[in-house]
């Protein structure tokens, strides 16, 4: 029941996004074929007829929606020769997902470790410097972090490749740059969560029955302390997807982020719209997953609406 409602909600969101972007696209003068060079009006007309741009907007809307829902077809790219939007997205998606997943892992791994450590060493030098680092990570945009890291690890000490896509070595630097701000957030959240939990009675009970520090922290405290982190995962995934636009551009990774920005700059309507929809779908399905994972971490939470 819960799943069904959430899936309906998701479908509704996607439809809304589709509608908004469709009418934005059509509502503004200047079609995909208007360019700096003058095209002959007759050729323009034929092109528009071929792609069905001459029909009334509502008819186009219905047809595009039908293509999308029934066949999962976004149509041809308006600017890249010989590619349909589906091809491009299918090509870019695995790369972007790999980058995003590694970045998320880095964010969680680094963030939780730093958060737990600074909660256990509360008020100490380590805690303070970690939290200062976290504030910096939150405040600095990822391209600033990226340019500094590139200067250090690519130019000064040539350890890693500067840009491109290939072996896992191409993934390290972009994933770190992408994950860093979120690691900072996660660290803060973990710290607060752990501090709250460590003050609870049941932690004292666990200690009193003679459990080792490590066991108390890892099995008893961490589960409760991670709750705020779990609810942050949704926004984090959305943020990582957004950040990947910049990171993919910096490191020249041919993922959907790059396609999206390129399509926006080239006014490639169909590709741009496909990317918007794909991103929306990714964000909302991740939110769903996060809500489900929340119940696993905290049995008190019930799923509804």
């Amino acid at each position, binding site marked *: 029941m819960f799943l069904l409602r959430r899936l309906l909600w998701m479908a509704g969101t996607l439809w809304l996004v589709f509608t908004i972007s469709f009418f*934005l696209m059509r509502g503004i003068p200047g079609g995909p074929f208007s360019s700096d060079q003058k095209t002959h009006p007759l050729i323009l007309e034929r092109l528009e007829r071929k792609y069905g741009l001459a029909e009334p907007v509502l008819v186009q809307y219905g047809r595009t929606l039908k293509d999308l829902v029934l066949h999962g077809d976004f149509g041809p790219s308006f600017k890249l020769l010989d590619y349909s939007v589906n091809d491009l997205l299918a090509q870019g998606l695995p790369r972007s997902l790999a980058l995003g997943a590694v970045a998320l892992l880095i964010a969680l791994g680094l963030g939780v470790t730093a958060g737990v450590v600074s909660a256990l060493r509360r008020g100490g030098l380590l805690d303070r410097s970690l939290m200062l680092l976290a504030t910096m990570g*939150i405040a600095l945009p990822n391209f600033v972090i990226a340019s500094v890291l590139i200067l250090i690890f690519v130019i000064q000490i040539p350890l890693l490749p500067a840009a491109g896509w290939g072996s896992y070595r191409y993934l390290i630097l972009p994933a770190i740059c992408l994950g860093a701000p979120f690691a900072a957030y996660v660290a803060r959240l973990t710290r607060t969560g752990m501090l709250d939990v460590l003050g609870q009675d049941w932690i004292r009970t666990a200690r009193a029955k003679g459990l080792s520090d490590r066991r108390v922290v890892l099995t008893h405290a961490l589960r409760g302390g991670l709750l705020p982190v779990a609810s942050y995962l949704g926004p984090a995934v959305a943020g990582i997807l957004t950040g990947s636009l910049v990171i993919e551009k910096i490191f020249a990774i041919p993922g959907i982020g790059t396609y*999206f920005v390129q399509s926006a700059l080239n006014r490639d309507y169909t590709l741009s719209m496909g990317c918007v929809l794909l991103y929306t779908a990714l964000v909302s399905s991740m939110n769903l997953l996060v809500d489900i994972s929340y119940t696993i971490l905290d049995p008190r939470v019930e799923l509804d609406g």
Partner: protein
Amino acid sequence: MVESAHVGRRAAVRDDRELERLLEEAAKVRGNTLWSDARRRFRSSPVARWSLRFLILAFVVSFFAPLLPLAPHARVRLSEKTLAPFAEPLRQDGLFFRHGWPERFDGGASEEDRDALRRAAMDRLCADAGVIAGAMIRVRASIFGDFELTPLVGTDVLGRCLLSRILWGGRVSLMVGIVATLVSLLIGVTYGAFSGYVGGRVDQYMMRFVDVLYSIPFIFIVIFLMTFLRAQQTATTGRGDKILVFFVIIGAIYWLTMARVVRGQVLSLKHREFVEASKVLGGGTWHVLMRHVLPNVMSVVLVYLTLTIPRVMLFEAFLSFLGLGVEPPDVSWGMLAADALGAINPLRVYWWFVLFPSLALGSTLLALNFVGDGLRDALDPRLMEKRARR
């Protein structure tokens, strides 16, 4: 009888005097208001205090950047490209100051010709800068003449003065932050206050609408929107309008959280005694809302505001970095960062490209975050309770 009445009157007189005295005394005592408390707490944190000072300084300096004797930020001078701070060619005409603003006119032209050329160049500069900055440039010209600062932090790949670009970029970036946040404030507070105060079914629907908007990833739609806006606006309207539209769009997507926060506060306030009292005394909805409810929401709004500004600035930097935001000849910090990254190459390291814009953007954002945290600690009553318990 008479006697007792007399005593009674005297007692009344004494009471009156007593009351007056008490009132006078009360007038002298200044109670601790939320704001004075907050100010004291805010001042007690050195990080927040210094961050605030830094921000004010940054804001004033970049707002009045056109008044400073800087080189024009868009002036290309290929003979000076990619020069490090205080590189030899920059020191030729003087260590800090040199002649030649707004442009150098060498060669055979006579004194009057050069003057005319200079005036024309200045007019172009003012026209490009818009009304306010244009006026400031004229004032600057009458103060400093054709003196300008040498590019103290180096020049970029086109020989433009990096210092000047950073300060002018700061104008745009800070302006985006403030204007867009104000837009989001206006929409969010109005929406949230109305929804919370009216309550009932209206509130339910209004909040449902916010939920729906929340589930839409607007950042992507904005990028999508900028695609069209750029193409269309270059054709029809001027540059100033475009930046304004840009501000408004950014502001319009950041109001959601503000609306939620304000609504929650208003809901919890509207059944408090002082609000009820004002209603009973005949205060209209508008009066009660403006006079009694909103002032009590302000502390939360202020905290949220300072946390929104850096987010908006980041978003502007993000868009400009992608090439979808502010367009040349305007500059913003995001654009400078993009330029810097574009110029990174293994042969020569132009460290000043990366360092100074990053420093400007980074320190401002960091300071904003510190001020936001400081304000939250100073104003948030829940945190106060927490601290008391510890």
